[in-house]
Every structure is written in C-alpha cells, then in structure tokens.
C-alpha cells in the first residue's frame, strides 16, 4: 500500500475534542468564521452601528446648519502633509457665481491653509440623548466662520454631506432595526401560533398573510403613511414609519417560523419532550425556539436590508420621513433631480452607505444562514 508522507495540517488533540463537544452555537460560529466575506461584512455592519452611536461625534458640522456661501461645494481635497510633516490642512474657499452660466464655483485660496485637529470642539449635541457634548472627531483650528471641512461636499443649502450621512445613518439603521424587531415579534408570534394551534387559527393567519402579500406595497405604504396625523412630531412619524414598514415584513418571517415549527414538531427530541410530559409552552421555548434561533438570526439579517430599502423608497417618494429629519432616503430624495446630477453629482455618494450596508447585511445573512444550517 501507499506510503507517501502525509502533510496534513498540524494534528492537535484539542481540535479533535473541540469538535466533539462543540455546542450548536460554537459550531455555527466556527462555520461562520470560515466565511471571510461574511466576517468582513459583519465588521462593516458593526462599524455602521458604531456610527449610529457616535454619529454626532463623527460629524464635524451641524447637519442642519445652512449657508448659501457653502452651497454645492464639491468634495474638497484634504492635504495631509504640510512641508513633509503630517499636519492635515485644507485651503480656504472662495465662492464665485458665473454670471453667464449661473454656475457656482469655488477657488481654493492657496495662501490660506486651515489646519485640521482631532478631538476638537464644534457644534453642541446630546450624546445618546443623555450627555451634552461638543466634542467632535475632527475640526478646524483658528478657522474663520466661513471655513469648513467638506470631505464629501455640500448640498444646495450648504449643509455638509458627510455630517448629514453620519446623522442619517443613525436614523436609517435604527429604523431598520426597530422595523425588524417589530416584524420579528409579529412573525414569531403569529407564525408560531399558526403552527402550534393549527386549524382555524392557522387558516386565518395564512389568509391574512396571503392578502397582505397580494397588496402592492407602495399603495399600502402610501395609504398608511398618508394617514399619519400631521401634528405628529418627527419622532412619532419615525416610529409610525417603522411600524408601517414592518407591517409587511413580518409575513416572511411568520412563514419561516411556521415552517420550522412544523418541521421540528416531528423531530425526535420534541416527541421525546412531549412524551416526557413537558408542557407545550416549555417545549416551544426551551426546545424548539433555541433550535432555530440561528435561522431566525439569519433571516433577520436578510430582512434588514429590505427594511432599509423600504425606508429609502418611502422617503424618496416623499411618503416616509420628511425633512428636517435626516435619513438616507431623504438624502437621496435631495439628489433625485437633474440639477444635482449635473451640478452636484457628489450628492449621490449618499447612496454609497445604502449600498454598502445592504451588501454587508446580505453577505452577513448568507454567512449566518450557511453557518446555521450548512445543508439548508
């Protein structure tokens, strides 16, 4: 027989043991870890949620502050080295409107360098709505009022796009998360009820799901969104939109949950638990739920991008959040006209975080799903 040498990876006794005793969660995690893209996406998602928490700190300009002198400033070059020394600076800008073309242009005043500083003071905000602060990651030192940093440029009314994206991220991502939470709750509750009680309950819930899915989403949203009392504050509208978005989102989850429940019910361990006299409640919560929690997590991470797109579309149609709220949809709505495409195309960069986050959530969800159930 063959006697070729073996060059397999280092055999470790521990590795062996580990696999033998690994819990479902550990297995999932190990499998997930192998999915490089999913891990990278996970990191991106986490980064975005860091932005959610630190939005105001990462923003360097008041996202609401308008100034016609800053209208449509293109993304500005940041110079990192000043005479070979790391000392980031930007040039002061002078606005000019061409009287024949009516176009705005900005010339850097090369003689006037404005230096950047880290962890500086800027506009005031409430960190997490709790602690007043005016600290920001970057800022300018010894700047004149008209100076500013414009990493991604500014919009028509002179608001800094970077800062607005930071703040929009907070709203759009939490709205997605909140929407998924509501969907999840409804989905598990109704999907579970459908599977557990069966019969008429099942029929009714399944019918409702079918009807909801048969409704074109846009008019449904429009109807619901238009019905929001106008006296509601931005916060109230925000929560209402969340609920509207999740109103349709739950049907998918309910189906998944119901399917899983039904599949699990015939599994041996559930039968065993039933035979052992465990209560239905106990069976559901201690036996069945944990066994498909990983699926739910995966489904959730795949539902999130849909929520985010929904919010974006709704706001784009002018039905979702409205200014002065700042969300990705609102930023994109600002960009949805010819003059923006022609005169201020940089405003389209507002789409970048949307695309990035949706990609990240999709890869993450794929990775999680694969990890949770490599055969399903």
């Amino acid at each position, binding site marked *: 027989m063959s006697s070729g040498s073996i060059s397999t990876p280092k055999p470790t006794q521990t590795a062996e043991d580990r696999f033998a005793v690994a819990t479902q969660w550990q297995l999932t995690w190990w499998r997930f870890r192998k999915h490089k893209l999913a891990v990278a996406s996970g990191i991106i998602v986490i980064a975005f949620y860091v932005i959610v928490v630190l939005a105001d700190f990462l923003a360097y300009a008041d996202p609401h502050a308008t100034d016609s002198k800053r209208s449509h400033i293109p993304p500005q070059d940041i110079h990192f080295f000043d005479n070979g020394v790391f000392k980031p600076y930007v040039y002061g800008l002078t606005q000019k409107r061409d009287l024949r073309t009516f176009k705005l242009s900005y010339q850097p005043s090369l003689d006037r360098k404005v230096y950047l500083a880290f962890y500086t003071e800027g506009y005031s905000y409430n960190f997490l709505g709790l602690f007043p602060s005016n600290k920001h990651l970057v800022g300018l030192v010894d700047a004149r009022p008209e100076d500013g940093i414009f990493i991604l440029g500014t919009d028509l009314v002179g608001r800094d796009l970077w800062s607005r994206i930071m703040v929009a991220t907070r709203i759009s991502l939490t709205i997605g998360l909140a929407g998924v939470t509501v969907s999840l709750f409804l989905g598990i509750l109704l999907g579970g009820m459908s599977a557990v009680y069966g019969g008429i309950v099942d029929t009714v819930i399944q019918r409702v799901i079918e009807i909801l899915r*048969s409704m074109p*989403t*846009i*008019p449904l949203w*429009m109807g619901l969104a*238009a019905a929001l009392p106008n006296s509601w504050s931005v916060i109230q509208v925000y929560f209402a939109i969340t609920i509207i978005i999740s109103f349709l989102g739950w049907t998918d989850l309910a189906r998944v949950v119901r399917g899983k429940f039904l599949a699990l019910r015939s599994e041996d361990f559930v039968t065993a638990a039933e035979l052992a006299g465990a209560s239905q409640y106990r069976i559901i919560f201690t036996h069945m739920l944990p066994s498909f929690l990983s699926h739910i997590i995966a489904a959730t991470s795949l539902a999130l991008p849909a929520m985010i797109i929904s919010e974006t579309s709704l706001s784009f*149609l002018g039905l979702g959040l409205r200014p002065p709220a700042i969300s990705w949809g609102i930023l994109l709505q600002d960009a949805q006209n010819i003059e923006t495409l022609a005169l201020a195309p940089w405003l389209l960069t507002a*789409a970048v975080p949307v695309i990035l986050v949706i990609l990240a959530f999709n*890869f993450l969800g794929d990775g999680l799903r694969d990890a949770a159930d490599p*055969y399903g």
Partner: protein
Amino acid sequence: MLAYIARRAVLAILTMAAISVFAFIIIQLPPGDFVDAYIANLSASGSSVSMEEAKSLRALYGLDQPIYVQYMKWMSRVLVGDFGESMEWHRPVAEVIGDRLWLTIVLSLSALLLTWGIALPIGIYSAVRQYSALDYLFTSISFIGLAVPNFLLALVIMYFSFVLFGANVGGLFSSEFDLAPWSVAKVWDLVKHLPLPAVILALAGTAQLIRIMRANLLDELRKPYVVTARAKGMPEARVIWKYPVRAALNPFASTIAYLFPYLVSGSIIISLVLSLPTVGPLLLKALIAQDMFLAGTIVLLLGVMTVIGTFISDLVLMWVDPRIRFQMD
C-alpha cells in the same frame, strides 16, 4: 386534484374579496377626500370654491355618504364589470387605466422573463462552477444589483443616456407613436423602448433569483440522485439539466407569485422616474388626488393579479412537481 384546484379557487376568490375591502380602506386612509384635493388644485390655479360649492360637489360625487355605503355601491358596480368613473379624469376608470394595465403587465412580464432569462443560466453556471472567477463576478454583480435602490439607478441611467447619447428621455413610445393606434410598427417601437426599464426593474429580482438558483442548485448537486445519474453513464450536461436543474427550478414556479407584485410595486417608482405610461404613476396621482374609484380599482386589480399569479404558480407547481400532484388525490 380537482378538489384541490377548486379549494384554491375558492380561497383565491375570498382573498380577492378581502383585497377589495382592503383596497377601499387604504384609499380612504389619507385625510380629506377628492373634493379637498380638487379644491387644492383649483385654488392653486387661481380659482375659488365656496363652501356651498364644496358641499354640492360632495353630494355630486356621493362623498357625503358613509364609507360602507360607498363601498357597497362601488362593489355592486365592480361586480358587473363597471369600475366607476375617475373623478379626476372624467372617464370610466376602465378606460383611464386602459392600455396602462397592459403596458404594466408587458413591462412586468418582460422584467420577469428577463429576470429568469438572466438569473437561470447565471445561477446554474455559478452553482456548477462554484468558486470560479465568473461565479465570483456574477455573485458580486448580483449583490450590487440587490443593493442599489432601483429608482436611483433609473434616474442616473436616464440622465446619462440623455447626456451621453442624447436619448429621448423616458416613456415607452417615441413621440410619433404616442398618438398612433396599435400597429406592428407601434409594437416594435414599444419593443425598442422596453429593455431599459425592464432591465432596471429586473435588476434586483435577478440578483435575488441568481442567489436562490445558485443555492438551490448547490443543494441539489449534492444529492445522491445526481450520483446515480452519473453512474448510469449520462453526459454531465444532461445529468445537470435533467436532474438537479429540474429540481432547483421547482421553487421558481412559486416565485411567480411573489415576484409579480414586487415587480408591479417596483414599477411604480421606476415608471415615475422614467415617465412610463404604466399604472404606477396613475396610481400615485390617483392616491394624491384622492380619486378613489381609480385608486381603488388599480389597487384591486394589482391585488387580483397577484392572487391570480399565486393561483397560477400553484397550478404550475402542481404540474411540475409530481409529489404535489399525487398527494392531492
């Protein structure tokens, strides 16, 4: 099997009834009614409407009656095929929707076919050649397709096709055919205009379907019956097409049901941006103008189309999957 079809049909009819109620509720949700919208428009164009007039207008349109009465009146007409009159367009709703419904269906169906036409081969290729360079390329493209909001894409594509090619912007017909009655030339004109919106509309769905197809096929490729088939000495291509592809295609039949309403909804935004004469913009305007019979009918029709889509996909599923066919006996 007949009993199954009958049961599905009854359920479909019940769903439609529920949708009609739902449609009516949805269009009643926004505050105000058509007369409010009408006054707003009139006043914006410089006219005046007195209180007395508003009142008599409400009476004229039957808006002074309770909602359930309005619903019953509407339904009693709908059941005999009369969808009422559009308040804004002053024409029978069916006539206002007219070609737009067909164009919507044509657009959605072309998007659907395009979705399948692109997604199936790519999905199959990606699964069969998993982890190949092209697989990575297709997967990345499909993910990006999934992530870019299609309205944004529509706007950008429209603008750049204008800037770069000076292309006529939006629409489904060239101006010379806008007015013309249907003819071969007009259909051809439509065919020439369809690809761009269909591609934009199909993009997200395609991305999703590629992923579904790839995942399904990967699952199927691992199954023992593939080995059985290979062991018989079948050529590889035939093995894949006859067995796993057939099995992986199965879920596609059920995608008709969810993809269609999704495409129709998607077409609303795209049609608005690209100025396509589909029901989308009409619905949006009708909702804003509170033109309730028009809006209600469109929502109802879209819902019914979905129900029919679901019903068809059930039938297709039954036809393609002998397990369902024989277990329904």
